[in-house]
């Protein structure tokens, strides 16, 4: 178990670093897809089958591929003359380091670490479904509304584009 964990963690972190630092956006997007897949593997290793496969389906199969799609549509290559980082990137690095330090410090001093892993439940999918339909019914409905709104929003964006495309551009 521990060897598998370290391999997964290492690959996930390395691909995340690659996604944040590479110049070619396609490489970034694919590295990010690999990170998502690594996280799905970590979820499976934690016994969360449902979440693991949802992660694979939604993040790797849809979100990452849509990002790749967007990169291809925007001809994703950073101009070679400019840096890929903004001029103030040391600030970003400092903030990120500070946040990590705070999180790690809090972790080391907290007592949550002493929890032992519980035995994996036999059919968590059924339990998750029941919880969603009883205890979490209001957030679930809100999510439904959110998804509908997002769907309508995306359609409106696409429709506007078609309208602005339709009149032929006047020749000057």
């Amino acid at each position, binding site marked *: 178990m521990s060897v598998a964990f370290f391999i997964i963690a290492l690959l996930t972190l390395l691909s995340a670093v690659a996604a944040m630092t590479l110049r070619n956006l396609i490489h970034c997007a694919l590295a990010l897809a690999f990170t998502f897949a690594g996280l799905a593997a970590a979820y499976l290793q934690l016994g969360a089958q449902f979440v693991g*496969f949802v992660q694979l389906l939604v993040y790797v*199969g849809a979100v990452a591929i849509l990002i790749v799609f967007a990169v291809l549509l925007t001809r994703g290559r950073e101009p070679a003359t400019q840096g890929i980082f903004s001029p103030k990137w040391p600030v970003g690095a400092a903030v990120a380091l500070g946040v990590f330090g705070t999180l790690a410090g809090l972790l080391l001093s907290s007592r949550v670490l002493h929890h032992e892993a519980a035995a994996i439940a036999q059919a968590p999918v059924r339990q998750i479904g029941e919880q969603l339909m009883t205890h979490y019914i209001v957030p679930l409905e809100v999510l439904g509304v959110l998804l509908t709104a997002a769907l309508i929003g995306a359609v409106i964006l696409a429709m506007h584009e078609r309208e602005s495309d339709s009149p032929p551009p006047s020749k000057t």
Partner: protein
Amino acid sequence: MTPFSQFAIFSAIKIICVFAVTMFIVAYAVWVERKVSAAIQDRHGPNRVGPFGLLQPAADAVKAFLKEDFTPAHVRKVYYWLAPAIVMIPSLLTIAIIPFGSQLGHQKMVIADLNVGVLYTFGIVSLGVYGIVLAGYAANSKYPFLGGIRSSAQLISYEIAMGMSVIPVFLLVGGLNLSQVISYQTGSIFHWLIFKCPLSFIIFLVAMFAETNRLPFDLPESEQELAGGYNVEYSSIKFALFFMGEYAAVTAASAMLVTLFLGGWTLPIAGLDRPAATLGVGILQILIFLAKMLVVEFMVIWIRWMWPRFRYDQLMDLGWRRFIPLALANIVVTALVLCLVVK
């Protein structure tokens, strides 16, 4: 022998057998495709190598391996090598959870009996896009690129319709496990889910054609406009891998269709819908499954030579404006009926 090593050995045997049978079916699907197309177009088809050209797949394989593996200078090498492999893998992985028989002795005839069954399938199927997108990007020229873009849009669109089409099935069955789906369909032929949710079956069937890039939805590789689409720059065994990937996907999709809607390994006569008590019945049930699957696959091949190709906007229109609303309505209606009948 410890239970674990026993499990490992039996799993290994099952994996090898399933892989061998799948590869055999893939090889001969190409032969059937050529024979069927020949019959439809009033030709002979392959008939030189062996009786009825039956050794043609072997000859094709030898040819594919011996041809020069040409890598064009302008391609992006790493992705160029990765793409054909990525095309192959998802279809092979989906077959792992399909119950292809009841049991032989005490071994269940399924490689992995997952509780989240169909979620696994859709998760893995959604990875298939990467192979084609990477192939399109790796080629670094315009037709493959267009093919790759088209395919990613098409696959994602129809994945949604496909995923929503099977939700009524699982509302009826009450679980995501595929063995459960099959045991739900026993008893009478009218318990088959094709009769219980016909709309789901139709949407799944159409989406299956789109997901496997088969005519009438083979836009990503339409020869006439894109000169072959994403696989233009490929030759020899890499090109053959794309073809095998397509047929492996068709095989996996047919197996899934049979399991979800056509009763899987069961037949509602002579007690063949109960888990096998003897070895003979167990083998017979595997053969029933294979027979059903091959009938579906034959139909897929037949349709290819009977239908013209859709236009790209028609394809998208069909997916987003017809099938997704239909699938949503199907879910609502099924849920309402279940709610009213069960209460």
